């Protein structure tokens, strides 16, 4: 017998601290596989956010930095401008990117910074105990919206990908998920195209990945995947919103 799966070289041997069934681990693996396939593991500099993924610097086998809450795109801008020969990515959650860091994100996209943003959207603040995030779904219960999010009191869920695709500086914007092997493959293709945006100097690449938070959603891990497929995708439609390479946008759907 021969081995047909292996841990990517871009990951360290540290075991993930994520809760059982949390899809952060799948997204880490996909990102690491993409770094390996592009031969960028030695060259990459990653920016970890604040949130569950704060310890990403322990898991990725490349140079890592950790930014203040929401400031990862600003830190990435600085690093990329000083070291344009390096591949620079950020790994952020929705509480980080969509809330306190939305200003940095919009301006980094509007300036057309050559960075890649991995945006993990799980619709709650995972690390701090499941509070409502800007991306919490309408009607979704969280620890700060115990009767469900309502438009009158809390406003609408923030559609980050739809917002950013309007900006000329954004080269690639896609929303995917990791709820099945086929969706995992689509996500990996999206990551590769977001990497290409930076490699070819086209501007900002962002992949929004709908992810689970079984603990704070009070679901088992398999139910949480069903929740994404049935509830979350209805409010956050999947697809490629913008692609610097129009042909790929047509075929990639």
């Amino acid at each position: 017998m021969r081995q047909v799966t292996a841990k990517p070289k871009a990951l360290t041997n540290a075991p993930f601290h994520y809760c059982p069934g949390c899809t952060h681990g799948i997204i880490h693996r996909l990102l690491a596989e993409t770094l390996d396939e592009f031969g960028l593991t030695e060259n990459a500099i990653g920016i970890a956010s604040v949130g569950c993924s704060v310890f990403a610097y322990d898991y990725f086998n490349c140079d890592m930095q950790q930014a203040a809450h929401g400031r990862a795109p600003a830190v990435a801008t600085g690093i990329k401008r000083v070291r344009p020969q390096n591949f620079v990515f950020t790994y952020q959650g929705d509480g980080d990117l969509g809330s306190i860091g939305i200003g940095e994100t919009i301006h980094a996209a509007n300036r057309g910074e050559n960075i890649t943003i991995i945006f993990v959207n799980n619709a709650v603040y995972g690390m701090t105990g499941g509070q409502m995030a800007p991306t919490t779904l309408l009607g979704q219960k969280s620890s700060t919206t115990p009767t469900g999010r309502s438009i009158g009191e809390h406003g609408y869920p923030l559609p980050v990908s739809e917002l950013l695709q309007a900006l000329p500086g954004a080269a690639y914007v896609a929303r995917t998920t990791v709820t099945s092997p086929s969706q995992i493959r689509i996500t990996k293709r999206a990551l590769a195209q977001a990497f290409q945006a930076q490699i070819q100097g086209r501007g900002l690449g962002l992949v929004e990945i709908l992810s689970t938070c079984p603990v704070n959603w009070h679901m088992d891990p398999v139910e949480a995947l069903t929740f994404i497929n049935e509830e979350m995708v209805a409010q956050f439609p999947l697809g490629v919103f913008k692609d610097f390479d129009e042909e790929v946008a047509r075929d990639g759907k």
Partner: protein
Amino acid sequence: MRIKGRVDVEPELCKGCGLCVAFCPRKVLALADEVNSKGYRIVAQVKPEECNGCTICAQMCPDIALTVWRSGRSKEAV
């Protein structure tokens, strides 16, 4: 020759989330009664003869706890 597979489980990495069990198309895997040092029930092959090494379990595993092996005729895998 039928393609045969095998799944190796790294017990200390498995958190018993059950995603591999739910997605295995041949129901090879199930949660065992055995627990690891963190107290998680770990996954085990209950029908090892059914495994064809498709790697779906390893793709769904968030903790890279599974390594898939394969024998027989097949092209290079994922």
